[in-house]
C-alpha cells in the first residue's frame, strides 16, 4: 500500500501531509492528551506551516488502526505491549521509552477507610478498584502487590486507569491503584498516597515514528521533540517520570 | 335525577337521552326514549348521524350537550366500560388475534366469569347464531356474514341493559337474515333492557322495532310506531323507505291540491296535509283518459327499472312520482325514457293526513 504516495490528496489527513510534508499525524494514548496537545503547539511554532493532528484513543485501538493501514506518522503508546503489536507488524522499528508512570494509591479526600499504605488494601472491608491485568496499570498493580506479598481482592477490574479513578472520585471505592499523573490531573478530587513498592511497578511509554509514515521527516522531528528536555519538562510537569 | 317524576312506576322509561354532538359541518341533536323491553329503530339516510348517536350512547363519542339516563341513573359521566351496554359495530371490529369463541368470551371474562365459564357461555352464543363449528376460526377466516354473526353474539353475551346495534343484519344473506332476525326478535323479547337498533332495512325495522325514530341531518324528523310511520311518512326519505309516493299539499274537504295537481281523497280534512300513495296505485296511459280531471296529471318518463316482478317507472312532471306496472303493461304502452304519459291514482288508494 505504500507504493503510491500522494494520490489521495484530500482523502485523509495523512495523505494530504504526504503531498506537502506540512502535516503531521500523531497517534497517541489518551492519557497523553494534555501533554501532547501542548507539545503539538510547540512543534507547530517551531515548524511554521506544519499542522499537527492528533488521534487520541486507547493504545490498543490505535495499534489496531495502525496495523490496518491508518495514515499515521508517530505512535506514542501507553504500554510496551501495544507498541509491540505495531512493531510485530513491521509498522514501526526501534521504539524509545520516553516517559514512565508510577502507581499511587488514590483515595477520596475524606479517606473513609483510613488507608495509609499498600497493605491496608488487603483488608476485606476496604473496597478497592484495580485496573484489569490486560491494561498497563493493572499489570503494574499486580507487580506492586506481588512485590509486597499482598493478596488484594478488588471489587472491580477496570478497563482503564481513568475509569478506576472515577470510582474513587465518586466515592464508590475506598481506594484504587492508579498513576501519579492521574491523581495529579484529578485536582483535589482524590488524594494520592505514595508507596515504596511502586518503584517495582513502573509502566513505560514507548514512542516510535512509523515505517510507512507519510511524513517521515516530521515524524522523526516530533519524536525528537518529545525526547528532548523541553518535552520531558512538559511531561514531568504532568506527573510523569522521566525515562 | 329527581325521584319524583310525573309518571312513577311501570311507565318509567328505561332510557332517556338527549344527545348533542357537534362536529365541523355536522351537528347531532336528538332525543331518544325507550321503555323497558322496548326496541327503538333508528333510521336515516347515510351520514344522518345514526352511528354518531350510538357512539354517544356507548360513551365512545363525548356529548357536547344533553344527557343520558338509564334506569334512572345518569350515564353521562360513567366510563364506557362501566356502562351496562352491548354494541355491535357497523364494521364488526372483531379482535383479529382471538378466535370467534374467544371474541365472544371476551365480555363475560371482563364481567368476572372464569375462563371456562366464559367459554361455555360463548359457545352457547355461537351455537345460537349458528356458528358453533367456526368457534376456532380467526376473524380473517370468516366470511363477512359469519363475522357479523360473531359480533352479534359478542354483544349479546354480556347480557347488557342497553343494547346498541349498528346494522346488525346488513351482511347477512336472505336466509340467515331471516333466521337471525327471528332469533334476535326472540332475544329482544326476553330482554328487559332497552334496545337501539340502527338499520337501513325497513323490513328489519318493522319486524324488530316497537318504535321508529327517523333522523336526517342530525335531527329527528319523524317517530312513532312502525305501522304509523309506514302509513304516514312525513319526509321523502321515509316515504321512499316505506315505498310510497309522498307530497305536501293543501286540503279542503276530500280534495288536496299539490302544485297544479288536485287529488281526491277519502279523508275529510283541512289545511296543510301530506298525501301518500303506493307506486302500485299509479296507472299510466298514453293518452289522456276520460273522466274527472282529479288524480290525473301529465308526466315525462325519467327512467324505467325492473322492480321485483314488476317494473318501476320514475316520472317527472308537476309532481315526481314512481309507478309500478307489470312488464306486460310496459310492452303494451311501449314506454321509453323521455316519453310523455298520463298518470292517474285511484282516490281510494291515497291517504291524506295532517302535515
Amino acid at each position, binding site marked *: 500500500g505504500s507504493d503510491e504516495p500522494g494520490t489521495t490528496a484530500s482523502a485523509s489527513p495523512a495523505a494530504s501531509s504526504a503531498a506537502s510534508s506540512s502535516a503531521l499525524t500523531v497517534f497517541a494514548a489518551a492519557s497523553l492528551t494534555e501533554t501532547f496537545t501542548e507539545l503539538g503547539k510547540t512543534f507547530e511554532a517551531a515548524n511554521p506551516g506544519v499542522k499537527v493532528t492528533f488521534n487520541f484513543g*486507547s*493504545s*490498543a*485501538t490505535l495499534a*489496531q488502526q495502525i496495523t490496518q493501514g491508518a495514515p499515521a506518522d508517530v505512535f506514542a503508546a501507553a504500554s510496551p*505491549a*501495544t507498541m509491540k*503489536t505495531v512493531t510485530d507488524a513491521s509498522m514501526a522499528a526501534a521504539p524509545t521509552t520516553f516517559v514512565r508512570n508510577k502507581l499511587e494509591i488514590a483515595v477520596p479526600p475524606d479517606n473513609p477507610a483510613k488507608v495509609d499504605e499498600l497493605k491496608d488494601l488487603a483488608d476485606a472491608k476496604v*473496597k478497592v*478498584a484495580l485496573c*484489569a491485568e*490486560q*491494561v498497563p496499570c493493572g499489570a503494574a498493580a499486580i507487580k506492586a502487590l506481588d512485590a509486597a506479598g499482598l493478596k488484594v481482592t*478488588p*471489587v*472491580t*477490574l*477496570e*478497563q482503564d486507569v481513568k*475509569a478506576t479513578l*472515577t*470510582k474513587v472520585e*465518586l*466515592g*464508590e471505592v475506598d481506594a484504587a491503584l492508579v498513576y501519579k499523573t492521574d491523581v495529579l490531573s484529578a485536582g483535589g478530587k482524590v488524594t494520592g498516597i505514595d508507596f515504596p513498592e511502586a518503584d517495582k511497578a513502573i509502566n513505560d511509554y514507548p514512542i516510535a515514528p512509523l515505517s510507512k509514515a507519510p511524513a517521515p521527516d516530521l515524524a522523526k522531528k516530533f519524536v525528537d521533540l518529545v525526547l528532548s528536555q523541553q518535552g520531558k519538562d512538559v511531561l514531568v510537569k504532568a506527573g510523569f517520570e522521566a525515562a | 335525577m329527581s325521584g319524583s317524576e310525573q309518571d312513577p312506576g311501570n311507565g318509567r322509561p328505561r332510557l332517556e337521552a338527549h344527545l348533542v354532538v357537534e362536529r365541523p359541518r355536522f351537528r347531532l341533536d336528538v332525543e331518544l326514549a325507550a321503555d323497558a323491553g322496548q326496541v327503538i329503530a333508528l333510521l336515516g339516510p347515510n351520514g344522518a348521524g345514526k352511528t354518531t348517536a350510538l357512539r354517544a350512547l*356507548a*360513551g*365512545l363519542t363525548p356529548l357536547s350537550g344533553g344527557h343520558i339516563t338509564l334506569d334512572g341513573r345518569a350515564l353521562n359521566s360513567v*366510563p*364506557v*366500560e*362501566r*356502562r351496562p*351496554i*352491548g*354494541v355491535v*359495530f357497523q364494521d364488526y*371490529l372483531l*379482535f*383479529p*388475534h*382471538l378466535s370467534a369463541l374467544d371474541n365472544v368470551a*371476551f*365480555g363475560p*371474562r*371482563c*364481567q368476572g366469569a372464569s375462563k371456562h365459564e366464559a367459554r361455555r357461555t360463548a359457545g352457547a352464543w355461537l351455537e345460537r347464531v349458528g356458528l358453533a363449528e367456526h368457534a376456532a376460526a380467526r376473524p380473517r377466516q370468516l366470511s363477512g356474514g359469519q363475522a357479523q354473526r360473531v359480533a352479534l353474539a*359478542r*354483544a349479546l353475551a*354480556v347480557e347488557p341493559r342497553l343494547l346498541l346495534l349498528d346494522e346488525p343484519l346488513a351482511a347477512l344473506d336472505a336466509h340467515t337474515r331471516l333466521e337471525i332476525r327471528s332469533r334476535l326478535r326472540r332475544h329482544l323479547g326476553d330482554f328487559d333492557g332497552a334496545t337501539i337498533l340502527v338499520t337501513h332495512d325497513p323490513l328489519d325495522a318493522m319486524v324488530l322495532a316497537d318504535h321508529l325514530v327517523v333522523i336526517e341531518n342530525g335531527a329527528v324528523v319523524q317517530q312513532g310506531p312502525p305501522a304509523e310511520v309506514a302509513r304516514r311518512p312525513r319526509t321523502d326519505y321515509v316515504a321512499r323507505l316505506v315505498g310510497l309516493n309522498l307530497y305536501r299539499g293543501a286540503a279542503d274537504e276530500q280534495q288536496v291540491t299539490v302544485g297544479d295537481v288536485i287529488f281526491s281523497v277519502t279523508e275529510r280534512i283541512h289545511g296543510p296535509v301530506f298525501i301518500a300513495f303506493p307506486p302500485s296505485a299509479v296507472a299510466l296511459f298514453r293518452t289522456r283518459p276520460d273522466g274527472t280531471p282529479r288524480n290525473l296529471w301529465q308526466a315525462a318518463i325519467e327512467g324505467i327499472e325492473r322492480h321485483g316482478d314488476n317494473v318501476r317507472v320514475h316520472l317527472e312532471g308537476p309532481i315526481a312520482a314512481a309507478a309500478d306496472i307489470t312488464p306486460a303493461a310496459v310492452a303494451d304502452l311501449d314506454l321509453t325514457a323521455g316519453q310523455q304519459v298520463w298518470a292517474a291514482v285511484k282516490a281510494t288508494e291515497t291517504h291524506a293526513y295532517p302535515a
Partner: protein
Amino acid sequence: MLLAVLGMAFLVLPLAGLLVRAPWSTMPERLAEPQVLEALRLSLVTATIATAVCLVLGVPLAWLLARVSFPGRRLVRALVTIPLVLPPVVGGVALLLVLGRRGLIGQWLESAFGFSLPFTTAGVVVAEAFVAMPFLVISVEGALRAADLRYEEAAATLGASRWVVFRRVTMPLIAPGIVAGAVLCWARALGEFGATITFAGNFPGRTQTMPLAVYLALETEPDAAIVLSLLLLLVSVAILAGLRDRWVTSA
C-alpha cells in the same frame, strides 16, 4: 430490492471481515476457558433480566406516551431518548451519581437497606436496562400509534377496564412491535459495555459480561477479542433466529 440487499451486505459484511481474521486454529482452546463461558452466561442472564425490566417499566411508559394526553408529553417523549444519546460511559457516571454509594438515591438505599448496586450483578442489570429501555419504549410507542383504536373502543364496550383492554387487546395487536422492541432491547443490553463497566465495574463471574471481556481482550490480544465477539454473535443470532419467528407469527 437492490437497496435491501445492499443494506443487508452492509450489516453482514463486517462479520465476514471478522471471520476472515479469526484465528481458527486456536479457537477451541480459547473458547474452553471457563471465564469465557461464565461471561457468556452472565451476559445472557443479565440481558434477559434487563429486557424483562424494560418490558415491565417501558411498555406502560410507551402506552402513556401514545395514549394519554398530558402537558409536556412532547418533552417527556424526547427525554426518553436520553440514554440513547448519552455516551454510555457518561450514562454510567450519571447512574453512579444517582444510584452509587454517595448518589442521590444510592446513599439512602445504602443507609436504609445496607444495599449498594455498583459492583453487583444487579448493577449490571440496571446499567443495561438504562441503556436499552429507550429502544423498547420508542418501538412500542410507534406500534401503539399505528394500531387501530377502534378495537380498544370495542373492548371497552364489552366491559374491559383500561388495563384489561391494554393486556388483552392492545398488547396482542401490537405484539410484533413489542417483539421488535424487545429484540432491540435485548440485543442492545447484550452488547452494552460503557455504562456497565462504569456503573457496575468489571469482575469476572459477577459483573464481567462478554463485551467487557472482549474489550479487555482487545487490549492485549485482538485475536482473542474477535473470537469472543464471534461467540457472542453466534449465540445471540442463534437465540434470535430460534425464537423470533415463533413470537412474531404467533402474534
